[in-house]
């Protein structure tokens, strides 16, 4: 232990003697470790915020859409589906509401984009049309006023609930409740405003929309007899898979799809979506970190290079130490410790560098970063291994020097 400390002291002494050279050698490791840790933290941050925004839509959601995503890659099937005009209609929703036991509620969704007018201001915003259950399913909160009711939906009332961005664009400081706005030329009464939801991971404004009863959207605005999708909420997170399967079988039966035929709709749940997102971000992270780790390798070669130079320069010192009684192992350990000290110091500086980068990124860009201990531990052990691996050959060369020749070396 004493001797190891002595070796570490000698190593630092040697590194400080050639400050610039040591720093340049470490730079490879600093950049390598820095890049790997920064990339992993960006990846982890991205994953966290994507997951948060998916969960932010609502919890335990099951999404039913027309057409089968599994066959979208099959050109023939796509033409067939296009010709058939597959639709999800009110009777599908009713079938789900009647038959499904593992869901708490289900709501239709029609989305579109329309011009919205109030006095002299106008804006193009998204229209999310749903039933009275849409408020909870979408995880929205009413700020002022109220959401449209069941009777508003069945009567196809011209009422609207508006998001904060729309309020800012059209009303400014005026209280919008009770005001009349025009959506695609039709009059709507504003009955409620929504709490702000901010931007999602991709920088989209989640407050730039107007919500109206689905029947109003279908009959009075867009002339539709179908929904873009149906949202359902399972009774708990555990049964979300079973609930999805239940809905699938209800719809198969309701739509008369025979055994062996594939569905003309698809049922996805949040867990699946989150899995897909995790897989994608994980692949992304691993690929980027892999590329970054190449610079770690290059840094390692730099260490080996400089250690070989160091061994040559210090041939005489090695000769003196050996003449005085240093065994081959003592010399080996001395130089190995030196290269490991070099790479670990580089690794620590690299981690500090990465922390700096990720703090800067999360403060000054839309990217979210998340520094976790795992990449730091991995990076540190990786740089130790790099130092060990690339230091062993120079150290062995040093250890094998013949003391007589080494003493004579000029």
């Amino acid at each position, binding site marked *: 232990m004493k001797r190891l400390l*002595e070796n570490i002291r000698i190593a630092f002494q040697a590194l400080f003697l050639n400050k610039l050279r040591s720093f340049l050698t470490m730079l490879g490791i600093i950049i390598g470790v820095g890049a790997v840790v920064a990339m992993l933290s960006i990846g982890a941050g991205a994953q966290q915020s994507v997951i948060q925004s998916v969960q932010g839509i609502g919890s335990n959601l099951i999404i039913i859409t027309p057409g089968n995503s599994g066959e979208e890659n099959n050109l023939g099937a796509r033409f067939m589906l296009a010709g058939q005009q597959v639709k999800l209609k009110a009777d599908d929703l009713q079938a789900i509401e009647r038959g499904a036991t593992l869901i708490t509620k289900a709501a239709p969704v029609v989305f579109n984009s329309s011009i919205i007018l109030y006095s002299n201001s106008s804006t193009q915003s998204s229209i999310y049309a749903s039933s009275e259950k849409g408020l909870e399913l979408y995880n929205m909160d009413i700020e002022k006023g109220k959401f449209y009711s069941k009777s508003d939906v069945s009567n196809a009332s011209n009422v609207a609930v508006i998001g904060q961005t729309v309020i800012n664009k059209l009303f400014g400081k005026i209280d919008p409740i009770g005001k009349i706005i025009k959506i695609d030329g039709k009059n709507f009464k504003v009955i409620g405003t929504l709490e702000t939801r901010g931007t999602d991971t991709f920088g989209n404004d989640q407050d730039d929309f107007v919500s109206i009863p689905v029947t109003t959207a279908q009959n009075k605005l867009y002339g539709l007899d179908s929904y873009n999708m149906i949202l359902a909420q399972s009774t708990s997170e555990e049964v979300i898979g079973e609930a999805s399967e239940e809905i699938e079988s209800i719809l198969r039966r309701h739509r008369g799809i025979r055994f062996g035929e594939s569905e003309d709709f698809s049922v996805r749940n949040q867990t699946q979506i989150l899995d897909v997102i995790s897989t994608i971000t994980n692949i992304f992270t691993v690929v980027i970190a892999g590329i970054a780790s190449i610079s770690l390798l290059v840094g390692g070669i730099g260490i080996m290079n400089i250690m070989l130079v160091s061994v040559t320069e210090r041939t005489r010192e090695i000769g003196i*130490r050996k*003449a005085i*009684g240093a*065994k081959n192992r003592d010399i080996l350990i001395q130089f190995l410790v030196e290269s490991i000290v070099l790479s670990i110091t580089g690794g620590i500086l690299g981690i500090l560098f990465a922390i700096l980068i990720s703090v800067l990124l999360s403060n000054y860009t839309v990217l979210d970063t998340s520094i976790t201990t795992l990449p730091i531990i991995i990076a540190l052990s990786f740089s130790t291994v790099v130092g060990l691996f690339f230091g062993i050959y120079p150290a062995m060369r040093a250890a094998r020097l013949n003391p*007589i020749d080494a003493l004579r070396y000029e």
Partner: protein
Amino acid sequence: MTEINQDTVIKTTDITKIYRIGNIKVSALRGINLEITRGEFVAIMGPSGSGKSTLMNIIGCLDTPTSGQYFLNNIDISKLNDNELAGIRNKEVGFVFQTFNLLSRTNIYGNVELPMIYSKDRVANKKRRILDAIESVGLSDWIKHRPSELSGGEKQRVAIARALVNGPSIILADEPTGNLDSRTGEEIMLIFQKLNNEGKTIILVTHELDIAKHTHKIIYLRDGIIHGQEEVKKQLSAEEILREMPRLEDRLVENI
């Protein structure tokens, strides 16, 4: 088995050393029989190419003979491997080189400590022993200084302190005065003579007869064999020579 006297520190029997340079064999040593007893002060002399460096390397356990046996302090050195030799060097041999061979980045204390770092034995009062060794060569005020801040003679004194610190059986000095002016060289010889008076066994390799005459016995080496050896009848005393030798600065003052 050769009968070994208790007082014998070094005993060699028919040591040869053959170097191969390509296909050519060069016999550097051709049968050396040598016996040095405890407390002796011996000079090995010989022209360059006589094999004295090779002999010194073998005596110093830096190298092993091609044939023959070498006992150092009753240990058969001839058949040891590199690591065992390193252990013997550390424990039994104190080297003093012509070019001092100090670690330039390490201070005086660290240089003298060096043999102890590689020592297997747990030594009590390590620090005391290092300071004692430094004091015995009169450099106590310099322990924090680096070798580059010292004169040649002082460097050589550090090297002697380093050679002493592990209490070796022999001190092996290879041309220790070769890089020094005559007065400083004489001062180094004074230290060696004092150490010898305290009972240390010293082997001095030199090609200067004046230096060799400070010892008890001169062994002449030529063409890889011992050409002859003689007791020094009138041993030179470094102390006396120094007394008569005017100091350099004194002479300068006189000339002004």
